[in-house]
């Protein structure tokens, strides 16, 4: 055992000693004074969540919040999937009368909105909220109350738009809500307002989590976890968080300007009054293209973790993999105009974005080759998580190839707004996110619950998903090339699209069945799954050093990292740092690059204020759909909640 306070060199300049070197209160019990079950029990009491409803609403435990995030995101995935199934049933044959154009418009809008804003962004962050503190070897996420607040805001935003849909006021102008269609002239009523406020809810939540992840990764890593020992999953969500921080404000501002145009009478996007409709598209896609990578980057982290574990060797090309993540993060901000190639921009201007769009294939290609090389040089064990990763390789690469085609202005102009584009982005998004995600759930389920998922059902799940997906989406390339436009609720038999659409519908039903199977697997495994133990896959990263499911404190003593795969390097016993308080919530704050232990820092206690603040925020946001004055009185309620939240109470540790 090493002592936090004694084994690490001071990082502060001479004459300005770090607080970590302040004398320890001799009356305070420290984790080097007790051991074994007593230490575990006492720490669990200190870091635990109180029972009952109040305890549940006050919790700041990243694992509990993370679990809620994951469950809620999957709930929205199922809702989004159901809306897709209904659309496919409508399109199964020409001139089908299952639904009319109005419901179809609402369905494709709810499908896109749900998948992009209520599932795609939150699911990566949800897994990060649960896993990052465990993987970097700390006891809780940074700003845990903000984390709780962000979850409630996300939940309220998602429920709001789905309840609106059930009341027949669901948004109906597409997941991007282009003006002038979404403006006051062409979309009277409240439908678009609900969409625009849902954006504010979910983006607020997404930004909050991104800040927490950045701070946790930079400042709360276990001693010894230098920049080049950070797990690749953590690198992925770290880069992803920066992309979120720079991308999401653009769409928040765009949706706010839209709602101002609709409710207050401004003319930001009204060309007749000096506004600019194209401005909306620029702002939306400045967010919208990085959004694709916000969905994809966490999945690269899942793939790296799964490939390394099941290849039984360290990741081939750790450095180029990190390089690819950083390069992709930057490049994702310079591609947005390829969504606007048909709006009449100068060809010279468009060519800059063609160049960037094609060359982003370089970092993504590097990643794929590194993963294949890892498997090639390893001893792969083909369990369900790896099966999903292999499926990801096939589907994502196919989607990437059609993406390169779409980066070319002439091809894009021909197939713009056709089913070819629908096929492309489903190959990229389902291949690039959902397949690795399902693999990730199979992989980390034992850590979340302490039980294994069924391998037999898992393999059925994979093959149904793989076959169903390709059957649903491959024919869309052809229907697109045959000229079938997106967002049409029906078509005539003479167009000749009927057979391919029927095949797509059958594929979609098979794909949905695979998800039902997944759900059955989760529910039955929760009750009857084989007990997992702390490290059932014999993985190398720190989350597998914690119990399954982890105790509230994550680790009894903070691990000291000596290798990229600490559990493989230190097979007998992982070295630990001691000296933290047992009776107070305390964690190690470390230095940014070298992760030297720097400070002992108090971590916030559970509080009901984040929940109250989220309720006040929801009331203000929803109220402002109906009257602008809600911003005033709703803002006051949010202000009061925030005052309660931040009222100086002093850390329990300082007071003791």
């Amino acid at each position, binding site marked *: 055992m090493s002592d936090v306070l004694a084994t690490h060199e001071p990082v502060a300049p001479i004459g300005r000693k770090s607080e970590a070197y302040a004398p320890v209160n001799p009356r305070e019990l420290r984790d080097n004074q007790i051991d074994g079950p007593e230490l575990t029990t006492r720490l669990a009491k200190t870091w635990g969540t109180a029972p009952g409803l109040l305890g549940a609403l006050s919790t700041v435990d990243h694992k509990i919040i993370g679990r809620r995030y994951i469950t809620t995101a999957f709930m929205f995935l199922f809702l989004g999937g159901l809306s897709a199934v209904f659309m496919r049933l409508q399109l199964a044959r020409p001139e089908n009368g299952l639904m009319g154009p109005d419901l179809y418009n609402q369905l494709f809008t709810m499908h896109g909105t749900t998948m992009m804003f209520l599932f795609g962004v939150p699911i990566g962050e949800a897994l990060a909220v649960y896993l990052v503190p465990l993987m970097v070897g700390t006891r809780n996420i940074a700003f845990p109350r903000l984390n709780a607040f962000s979850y409630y805001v996300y939940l309220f935003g998602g429920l709001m738009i789905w309840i609106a849909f059930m009341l027949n006021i669901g948004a109906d102008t597409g997941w991007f809500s282009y003006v002038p269609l979404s403006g006051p002239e062409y979309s009277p009523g409240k439908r678009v307002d609900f969409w625009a406020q849902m954006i504010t809810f979910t983006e607020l939540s997404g930004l909050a989590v991104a800040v927490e992840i950045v701070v946790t990764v930079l400042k709360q890593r276990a001693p010894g976890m230098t920049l080049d020992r950070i797990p690749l999953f953590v690198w992925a969500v770290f880069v992803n968080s920066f992309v979120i921080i720079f991308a999401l404000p653009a769409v928040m501002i765009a949706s706010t300007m839209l709602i101002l145009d609709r409710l207050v009478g401004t003319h930001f996007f009204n060309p007749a009054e000096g506004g600019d409709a194209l401005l909306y598209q620029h702002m939306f896609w400045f967010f919208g293209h990085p959004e694709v990578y916000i969905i994809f980057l966490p999945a690269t982290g899942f793939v790296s973790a799964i490939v390394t574990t099941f290849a039984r060797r*360290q990741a081939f090309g750790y450095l180029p993999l990190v390089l690819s993540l950083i390069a992709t993060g*930057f490049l994702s901000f310079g591609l947005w105009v390829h969504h606007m190639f048909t709006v009449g921009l100068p060809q010279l201007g468009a060519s800059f974005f063609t160049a960037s769009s094609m060359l982003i294939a370089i970092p993504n290609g590097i990643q794929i080759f590194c993963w294949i090389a890892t498997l090639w040089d390893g001893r792969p064990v083909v369990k369900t998580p790896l099966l999903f990763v292999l499926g990801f390789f096939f589907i994502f690469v196919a989607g990437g190839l059609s993406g390169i085609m779409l980066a070319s202005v002439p091809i894009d102009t021909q197939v713009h707004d056709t089913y070819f584009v629908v096929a492309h982005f489903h190959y990229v998004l389902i291949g690039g996110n959902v397949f690795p995600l399902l693999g990730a759930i199979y992989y980390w389920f034992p850590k979340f619950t302490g039980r294994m998922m069924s391998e037999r059902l898992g393999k059925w799940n994979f093959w149904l998903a793989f076959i169903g997906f390709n059957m649903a989406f491959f024919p869309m390339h052809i229907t697109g090339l045959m000229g079938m436009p997106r967002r049409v609720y029906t078509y005539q038999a003479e167009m000749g699209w009927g057979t391919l659409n029927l095949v797509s519908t059958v594929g979609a039903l098979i794909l949905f069945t695979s998800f039902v199977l997944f759900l059955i697997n989760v529910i039955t495994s929760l009750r009857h799954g084989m007990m997992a133990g702390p490290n059932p896959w014999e993985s190398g990263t720190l989350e597998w050093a914690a119990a399954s499911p982890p105790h509230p404190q994550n680790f009894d003593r903070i691990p000291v990292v000596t290798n990229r795969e600490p559990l493989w390097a230190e097979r007998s016993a992982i070295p630990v740092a001691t000296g933290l308080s047992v009776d107070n919530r305390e964690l190690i704050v470390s230095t940014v690059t*070298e992760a030297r232990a720097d400070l002992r820092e108090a971590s916030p206690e559970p509080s009901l204020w984040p929940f109250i603040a989220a309720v006040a925020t929801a009331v203000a946001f929803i109220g402002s759909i109906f009257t602008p004055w809600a911003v005033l009185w709703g803002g006051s309620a949010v202000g009061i909640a925030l005052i309660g939240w931040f009222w100086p109470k002093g850390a329990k540790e300082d007071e003791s």
Partner: protein
Amino acid sequence: MAIHYARGIPSAGIFAGPVAWLLNTQINYALTPWICAHQVMLVPVIALAMAAISLFGGFLSWSAYRTSSVTPKPDSTGAGRPHRFVAIIGVAIACLFSLVILVQGAGGFIFHGCER
């Protein structure tokens, strides 16, 4: 400044490459109407200048890589020298973004700026 040449800056390439690319995209995009009006082949010139900035960042990263201690290697299991790790990523990012900038600049040889 001289010390930066000698010792380098590990992260220089990570910042210089993307910033140069951002400037290249934005300046050339904004200049397109002017290029159309005056028919001056400015895009490749600006791209060359920005590629040079990106490569200079890569050079500073390379200098940092050369002057930092040799062991352990950044891609090895015994890694733990983040400066060398950051420096080599800086070199690679600078090279990648220089390539992107030059490909963007190639558009200036093909289009006159007036095509819609």
